[in-house]
């Protein structure tokens, strides 16, 4: 696997850029919980599928919204490691700040939280979602973006 020996610990303030010229996915850790295995595996799967991945460290709603606009993201991936209210606030902030693109989310998101995020138009990929299904979703969501 290309780059599998490379290291990815997306937890600190640094922004990490992966991959090249494809659609641009902004991946953000939303909580201060430092577990990074899930977001690392997903970010690299997206990179290997041809996406340009911009990985933010542990960021707040305002920081994600700013980055989404600065980076002209085609898709935002939220790594939800905390409460649903925080994720909801991030989505609302993104919309209020003018980000109109698609948002999807992964992490330990319990069923009740998936229902609430779905109401905000966020697709959820909880534990057990295959990398394949996540890459397919990213492809589909960014294609829809182009049509619109």
């Amino acid at each position: 696997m290309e780059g599998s020996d490379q290291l990815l610990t997306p937890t600190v303030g640094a922004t990490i850029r992966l991959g090249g010229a494809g659609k641009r996915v902004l991946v953000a850790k939303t909580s201060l919980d430092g577990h990074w295995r899930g977001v690392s595996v997903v970010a690299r799967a997206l990179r290997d599928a041809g996406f340009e991945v911009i990985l933010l460290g542990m960021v707040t709603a305002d920081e994600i919204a700013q980055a989404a606009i600065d980076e002209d993201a085609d898709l935002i991936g939220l790594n939800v490691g905390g409460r649903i209210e925080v994720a909801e606030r991030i989505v609302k902030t993104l919309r209020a700040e003018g980000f109109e693109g698609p948002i999807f989310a992964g992490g330990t998101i319990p069923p009740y939280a998936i229902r609430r995020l779905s109401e905000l138009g966020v697709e959820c990929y909880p534990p057990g979602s295959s990398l394949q299904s996540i890459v397919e979703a990213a492809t589909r969501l960014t294609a829809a973006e182009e049509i619109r």
Partner: protein
Amino acid sequence: MSEGMELNDDARTVSGLPVKVSYGPSDVDPESASTRLPGEAPYLRGAFAEGYRSKPWRIFQLSGFGNPEDEGERIRYLLEKGETGFIMEHDRMTADHLYDVDHPDVIARSEDVGLSGAVQLSARDTALVLEGIDQKKYYAHPGGAVVQHAPFALAAYWTVARRRGVDVSTLTGTGQSDYFLTYLGCITKQQIPARDGLKINCDIVDFCHKNVPKWVPISIAGYNGADTGLNAFQELGSVFACAIEHLDETIRRGRLRVEEIARCLGGVNFRVGMDFMEDIAKLRVARKMWHDLLVSRYGVTDPRALKLRIHVVTAGSSMTYQEPMNNIVRGTLMALASILGGVQSLGVSGYDEALSIPSEQAHHMSVRIQQILMHETNLAKVVDPLGGSYYLESLCGSLEERAWTFLSEIEAQGGFISTLDSGWLHARATENQFELEHALVTGKRELVAVNVHQGDGDPFAVDGFQGTVDAFDRATVRLQELRRTRDGRGAVQALRTLEEVCRRGDNLMPAMLEAVGADASLGEIGSVMREVYGDWKVPINF
């Protein structure tokens, strides 16, 4: 017919050891340590001759959430169910970062506060958790999983005991100060450098040896290495590489004899996952490696130091989000492997592990799984019942060989802490993470109801435990009250002393106890430690 109906023929253990279709006498070295009895060096078959007949394993579950009162209630619930020690989780956001609840990074995510542990910003908060719990009676893990948080967590627990008039030197329990969590598996936004963490850990060892002699000062814990991706022999090799750093540093200080240090460090933790036989082998090999390491490298002869005690937490990453009730079976199997491996202490992950922190029902079930194994199966009667199994003994030989090799590789990199600073160990974990995920896509690895036998509707749906919602607000009120009602000058003076002690490089534990005893807050103590030690540079390498 679905793909899942075909049997998986990739005959390797999770760690990649090739597995034959059957094993016989020629697969086992006739001189192997398996011919020695339990309780006999090198302790492959068990550290204690009488096993669980002399002492049952400790039922020891991770627990905590919300307000201190919520956490206390859950701990009392678990003790009533038959838990035989208790673990206090602290709110991760504040504890892991040493932040008070009014830190801007916490305020920005205020709803997350209390999600996975009670907010404990002072010894007063810790006292609220411990209300109605007899510290003299129970073996305790008062938190401090993250290295920079451990001195505070221990000091808070001991301060509560002092205020109750309990003699701290009689207390039993364990610290954690976990390098695998802090610098490998769960890398927080801010953390003191890994090298300084070693100094602090050795301060705790020195302090406990003198002042809290029955306490396990730190517990080197492979769990988070394994759940981040290290395989069985990598977990073994890196746990003992971590132990070597602590042994060498404490020896260098020259205050304790190596036997005393080894006894302090000889309570470790491993993760048991779903490769049943390999994980049993891992626990047996761990005991032998500890013995051999101490004898050959450090010349230790005292059997009390040579006997490794093991706490296991079953793999959270083995618990599936899909059809969570199936995790009761997984938890049982992992607990069974732990018992067959001869552990002294065990925590079984909740069946709702992939959804949330444990609900009361999930905690109840984790305790009952252990009690059923303890009381109904007769397994507690005979030590190491699988000893002599051709397959198991052969696996032990292969695992041990690879574990020593991995340990040598770490030492060739400059030692355990160097592999954290450079990111070498993280790279080993990420290789395996990717391989494990791709094995799920290709079907080489099969998970029921995830990539084989997917259900279309779970008859036992679980929604996830939601905890409490007012932890931030109430912690804010308590913090304001703390600042208003304490002797402010005393707290400032104690913090100043703590800073001086840290700068001089003296043992920080006495000054930490003074500061916590003066009701200095977690965030104030964190400011001192950040000021003195600075930040760890997280290895990012592309």
